């Protein structure tokens, strides 16, 4: 459709209503979700409802000073994001504008493209002129950062065809690097820049079962509640329970190729932290700064509400784009609740009949559809061997009133995501971080993918992984149960053996589940060290001596202290040996901290 001009007849906050008649009284056609430019400032908007001769638009920017009668341009296309070399390491707003391009304050109606138009990239073709290609096929590469080779693909919405005149050398993203002679007889210019509508999931050849586990470095996730590569997880938690810290830790330590981090309607300060930290923080595996594998989308709580939706959609689109190159991508979103609340605001303005707590009836379906963009796939393309890529989605939720059970978006996320990592106020107040509640969290993958997990851990030479997890988890559950009894009956009310089991569960909580994000060794645990640690914990449970309650408690306190110190050290094996020896050696040594 071509561009059309219409006029505003109503403005209510970020809802703008236009008449679908031109000045001559003729009907003006319009498309659902059409991108529009509103008023003299060309504020970005989108058609979200059409009723007879009126269309409702959500405006992605502040509508101050808009007037009835102002002109609106219907662009004829859906809202798209541009993608290509230069995405990695950049900081974009919820609509894909490059934030570094603006001054101290964000002006309205000014679009700054995500990709630098001047910068030249070294394009190395991987196909020759004359070769047959299909959508998704890789035709060349660019070394985008030390960590990421950006694959240039035939855009997914182009036809099959033949490559003509492919070049080699330094080009900007808008330069023509080759031409495609399509099956349809038309010729298409191929550039490094391509666009995709943010509401449409990018296609894949095939969606696959998940077979591999994501190594996050966080023990309570990797051990108790594994997330599969290509899987989904949600992190609901009241404020102050460490939700954002968890997202940051995942962005830092997860072993994936690309991290897409979406700050959706949350504090600016947190995003500033990432922006300042990631260029400096070094990924221990590659020795390179984390910024070289990260794309940041920043929509802060003070920014217009509709752009929250933009941010989670552009995040998913960019994640899929890197997935299509054959990479493992982690999409982190903080927080999905803000998008749900944004939907609620708009729904109210549209006068829709509200569901629970005024959230719209379609919210659940919307969140499910968004989570479903995650997955492990065979990427599009027909050349060479099959390419596998994955996008794992982990979304934080901020329940209103801290009420996890009663908050509709949180419940929707828990139902949809396969892993629920629930943060506990109690553990956070006790300064036990990460404050995931070991009894409330669950990973459905443990039930549904047990065999796949077992096989996978065997391949990695951790054959007893799942058994260890089961034992350690049992110890926590057991300990909590006994603690509940003790709260009622007092310490004297329970037997020595039970007291011992309570103490063991407590060790697991304080020394295994508790992880110090500020310590360079403890903050992230690789799978091999994690395996050793579990083996050690289980050994400890077997040999922890039965004694009088007082003595056991003293011994336990020392043990917790020493294990935590071991967690802080690089050479954990020596520390473990020391601890085990001290137990075998009886009461001669007292933990060595005097």
């Amino acid at each position: 459709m071509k561009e059309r001009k219409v006029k505003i007849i109503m403005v209510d906050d970020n809802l703008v209503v236009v008449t679908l008649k031109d000045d001559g009284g003729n009907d003006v056609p319009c498309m659902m979700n059409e991108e529009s430019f509103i008023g003299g400032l060309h504020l970005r908007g989108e058609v979200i409802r059409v009723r007879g001769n009126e269309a409702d638009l959500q405006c992605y920017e502040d509508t101050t000073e808009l007037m009835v009668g102002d002109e609106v341009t219907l662009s004829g296309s859906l809202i798209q994001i541009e993608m290509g070399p230069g995405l990695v390491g950049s900081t974009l707003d919820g609509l894909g504008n490059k934030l570094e391009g603006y001054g101290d304050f964000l002006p309205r109606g000014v679009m700054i493209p995500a990709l630098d138009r001047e910068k030249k990239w070294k394009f190395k073709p991987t196909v020759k002129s004359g070769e047959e290609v299909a959508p998704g096929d890789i035709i060349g590469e660019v070394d985008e950062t030390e960590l990421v080779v950006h694959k240039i693909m035939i855009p997914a919405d182009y036809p099959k065809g033949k490559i003509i005149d492919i070049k080699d050398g330094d080009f900007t993203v808008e330069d023509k690097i080759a031409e495609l002679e399509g099956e349809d007889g038309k010729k298409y210019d191929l550039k490094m820049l391509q666009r995709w509508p943010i509401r449409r999931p990018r296609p894949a050849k095939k969606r696959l079962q998940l077979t591999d586990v994501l190594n996050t470095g966080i023990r309570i996730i990797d051990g108790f509640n594994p997330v599969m590569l290509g899987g989904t997880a949600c992190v609901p938690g009241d404020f102050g329970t460490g939700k954002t810290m968890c997202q940051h830790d995942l962005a830092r330590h997860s072993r994936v190729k690309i991290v897409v981090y979406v700050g959706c309607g949350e504090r600016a300060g947190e995003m500033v932290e990432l922006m300042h930290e990631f260029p400096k923080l070094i990924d221990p595996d590659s020795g390179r700064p984390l910024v070289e594998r990260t794309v940041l989308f920043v929509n802060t709580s003070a920014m217009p509400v509709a752009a929250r939706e933009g941010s989670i959609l552009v995040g998913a689109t960019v994640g899929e784009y890197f997935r299509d190159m054959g990479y493992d991508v982690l999409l982190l979103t903080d927080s999905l609740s803000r998008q749900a609340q944004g939907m609620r605001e708009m729904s109210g303005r549209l006068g829709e009949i509200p569901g629970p707590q005024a959230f719209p009836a379609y919210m659940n379906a919307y969140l499910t559809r968004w989570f479903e963009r995650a997955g492990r796939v065979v990427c599009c393309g027909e050349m060479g061997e099959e390419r596998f890529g994955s996008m794992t989605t982990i979304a934080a939720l901020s329940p209103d009133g801290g009420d996890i059970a009663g908050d509709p978006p949180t419940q929707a996320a828990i139902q949809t995501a396969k892993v629920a990592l629930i943060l506990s106020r109690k553990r956070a107040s006790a300064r036990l971080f990460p404050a995931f509640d070991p009894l409330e969290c669950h990973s459905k993958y443990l039930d549904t993918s047990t065999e796949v997990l077992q096989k996978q851990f065997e391949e990695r030479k951790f054959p007893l992984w799942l058994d260890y997890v089961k034992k350690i988890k049992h110890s926590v559950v057991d300990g909590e149960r006994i603690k509940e009894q003790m709260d009622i009956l007092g310490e004297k009310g329970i037997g020595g053996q039970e007291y011992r089991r309570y103490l063991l569960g407590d060790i697991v909580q304080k020394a295994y589940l508790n992880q110090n994000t500020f310590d360079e060794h403890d903050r992230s645990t690789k799978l091999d060290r994690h395996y050793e640690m579990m083996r050690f914990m289980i050994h400890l449970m077997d040999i922890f001596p039965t004694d009088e309650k007082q003595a056991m408690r003293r011994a336990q306190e020392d043990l917790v202290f020493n294990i935590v110190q071991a967690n802080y050290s690089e050479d954990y094996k020596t520390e473990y040996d020391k601890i085990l020896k001290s137990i075998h050696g009886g009461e001669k040594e007292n933990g060595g901290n005097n």
Partner: protein
Amino acid sequence: MKVVYCDIENIDGPILQVKGVTGVGMGEEALLPGYGYAKVVKIHGDTVYMQSLQGSLGVQTTQKTEFMGKPFELPFHPEYVMGRIFDGIGKPRDGRPEIQGKMVPVEGPVVNPSRRAMGQGYIETGIPSIDGANTIVRGQKIPIYKLPGEDVNNIVARIIRQARVAGQENFSVVFGGLGLLNEEYIFFREVLEEAAERTIMCVNLGSESPIERLNVPHICCAFAEQLALIGQHVLVVITDMLRYADALMEVSNAQGKIPSRDGYPGDLYSRLARIYERAVNFGGERGSVTIIGVNSVPDNDLSHIVANLTGYITEGQLPVERGGFVIMKCLSRLKGLVVGKETRSDHGPIMDACVSAYANALGLREQKEMGFSITDEVDLAYLKFADEFESRFLPASQNLSLNETLDLGWELIRILPKRVIRIKKEVLDEYYKG
């Protein structure tokens, strides 16, 4: 372009409708001659919906309306503005003439996140629970939660009086009062007059229109932002943000919007965020805006929707009970940026150890109260620690330097045997000396 319209078509609470209007923009300021001011909140065809800042008591259907062609603005001048008192419309309420200066928007544009600097430097209040355990970083936003029956005015006054930025002269305080009682107004006016050269006040009284309250936080932030841009470090203290939320509910309901939780409007989060997110550290030669918002919490229930959303927006919380901070529920999210980096290296470990020991002691005290006898010597040490901590560390009525606060922490922790203190060995060995 000023056009005057006659007649008000509809009066619905504070929302007034004028018909037959053209050429008026969203958010525009409207003057109701002889009555007050209003802000355009919705335009439908030729009907304009205005939110009257003075409410609607006594509005006549023949009231004239003059649209000013621009959103609300304030005159600002970095020197003339000091020591002045304004009302909820930004007009002087101290009987002195209007300021001559450049006009700045009350609700300005959003700060570009990529131009924000990391929080840096801290605001010393002299209160150990804040400076030691919950250090407030420049550019931070943090609420003080209080029970409705609790009086935190003394604490707020103490913060206004004692607040300082280590090594910085260019520090000022902007005080915002929402629905202040007359005696509160007089109290705070006296506190602020003590340091008129570095303070600004913007106050809406309890006897005045609640709708005006919606402007007060933004006026405070607009002044603070301007000062920060020219290198000042500004502390904005606003009391009480619950009244802001209540005013918002009133306006929202009058417009027929569907309430979300507890009757508050669905955009409460976004509206509160628009205020608190104006806290900023510009970095370099320029200054910062730090916001402390006092927020009443009905029923002492921190899950109350206003407190809860504030918790999500702000960077920590400082609940007050019986004249002191409830240390177990206090949190400053940004303290890690300065603790141990700009302060003594033992700052983090000793404060964490104190709080964690206090938590443990509270658990024991609970058991004791339930009738279990506490006989273990370590447990008894914990209980003693708790008593001392409560009487010497927690009271807000103090003015200690940060190092004095840390030394006090070490003095108290020595009540406990060394081996139960969860502090890295090197630090413990250096400072415990017990």
